[in-house]
C-alpha cells in the first residue's frame, strides 16, 4: 500500500467527513443508551483534525496517524476520545511509512489490544471493540475492501441486541438491549470511509 500526500489528505477528509456527516445520527443513538454527546464529541474531534490540514497530510503516514490520535485525545472529551485516539496513535506507532497488508494486520491488532487495555474491555460488551475485532478478523483473513466494509456495517448492527457491560450504557442494564452501540457505529463509519479511500491500495 502506497499512500502519497494526496491520498493521505483524501483519507483524512474521508474519515472526518464520515463522522461529521453522521454526527446527528451518532448523537441520537447515544441519547437512547448513553449521555447523548457522542456525535458532538466526535464531530468536535474530527473538526480539529480537519483544521490541522493541509499540514497534517505533509507528515509521513505514521506521524500523521499519531497526530490524529493525539488531536482526538485532546479534543473529543468523553471516553471515546482516549479510546479512538489510542487506536490511531497505536496504528501510527506500529505502521511503517509504506505498509504492506501484513503490516496493517499486525498494526491494527496492536491498536485493538491498546483499546482493550484503555477501556479494560473485551469484545462482547457492546463497545467499539465489537466492530474492531470482527473487522480485524476479515482483514487478517484476506478479505477485500468490500468485505471489510460490509463486516463493519454488520458488526455494528449486531451490537443492537447486545447487553451493554462496559461504558455508560451498562448503567441501563437490560434496557441497553435493542439499541445500536454509538461507539460501534462511529467505528464502522470510520472503517467504511477508510477502506473506501484505500480501496485501490489495500490489496497491493
Amino acid at each position: 500500500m502506497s499512500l502519497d500526500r494526496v491520498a493521505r489528505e483524501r483519507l483524512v477528509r474521508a474519515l472526518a467527513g464520515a463522522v461529521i456527516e453522521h454526527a446527528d445520527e451518532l448523537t441520537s443513538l447515544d441519547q437512547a443508551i448513553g449521555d447523548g454527546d457522542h456525535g458532538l464529541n466526535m464531530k468536535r474531534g474530527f473538526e480539529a483534525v480537519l483544521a490541522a490540514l493541509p499540514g497534517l497530510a505533509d507528515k509521513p503516514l505514521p506521524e500523521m496517524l499519531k497526530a490524529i490520535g493525539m488531536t482526538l485525545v485532546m479534543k473529543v472529551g468523553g471516553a471515546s476520545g482516549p479510546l479512538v485516539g489510542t487506536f490511531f496513535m497505536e496504528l501510527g506507532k506500529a505502521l511503517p511509512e509504506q505498509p504492506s497488508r501484513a503490516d496493517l494486520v499486525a498494526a491494527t491488532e496492536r491498536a485493538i489490544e491498546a483499546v482493550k487495555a484503555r477501556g479494560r474491555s473485551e469484545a462482547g460488551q457492546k463497545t467499539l471493540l465489537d466492530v474492531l475485532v470482527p473487522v480485524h478478523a476479515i482483514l487478517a483473513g484476506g478479505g477485500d475492501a468490500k468485505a471489510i466494509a460490509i463486516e463493519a456495517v454488520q458488526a455494528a448492527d449486531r451490537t443492537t441486541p447486545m447487553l451493554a457491560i462496559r461504558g455508560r450504557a451498562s448503567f441501563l442494564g437490560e434496557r441497553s438491549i435493542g439499541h445500536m452501540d454509538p461507539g460501534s457505529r462511529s467505528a464502522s463509519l470510520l472503517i467504511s470511509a477508510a477502506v473506501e479511500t484505500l480501496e485501490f491500495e489495500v490489496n497491493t
Partner: protein
Amino acid sequence: MSSLRPGNVGIVIVSHSPKIAEGAADMVRQMVGDAVPLAWTGGDVDGGLGTNVAGILEAIETAWSPAGVAILVDLGGAETNSEMAVEMLPEDRRARVLVCNAPVVEGAVIAATESSGGSPLAAVKRSAEEFYA
C-alpha cells in the same frame, strides 16, 4: 485553585460538570482546610459537560506534590480521560498519580482528610475507596 504543602498527597477532582468539581473542591477546603494541594477540572474543551485531558493534566500540575496525586472522578469519560492524562505525564511522575474508584464528592473529602494527616498515596487511595466499599 491550589495551595502548596509539599509533604501531603495532592487531590484532583474531575467531573463532567465544572460546577460539581468546583463545589466538591469547596467542600474539601471547608472540611479539610488548606493542608493539601488541591485542584479541580470539569467540562469539555468548548465549555459543555464533559472532561478533557488537557484540563486534567493542568489540574495534576497544579495539585502536584512529591508525595503524589490522587484523582477523584465521576462517570466513565472522566475516568478514561484521567487515565489517559496519567499516561501522558513524564515517566517519573506517572507512578505517583492514581485514579481512585470512589464517589467524587465523598471520595475527595475522605482522600483529602487522609492526605492532611500525612498518609502516603496508597493509603489516601485506599481510604477513599473503602469508605463505600
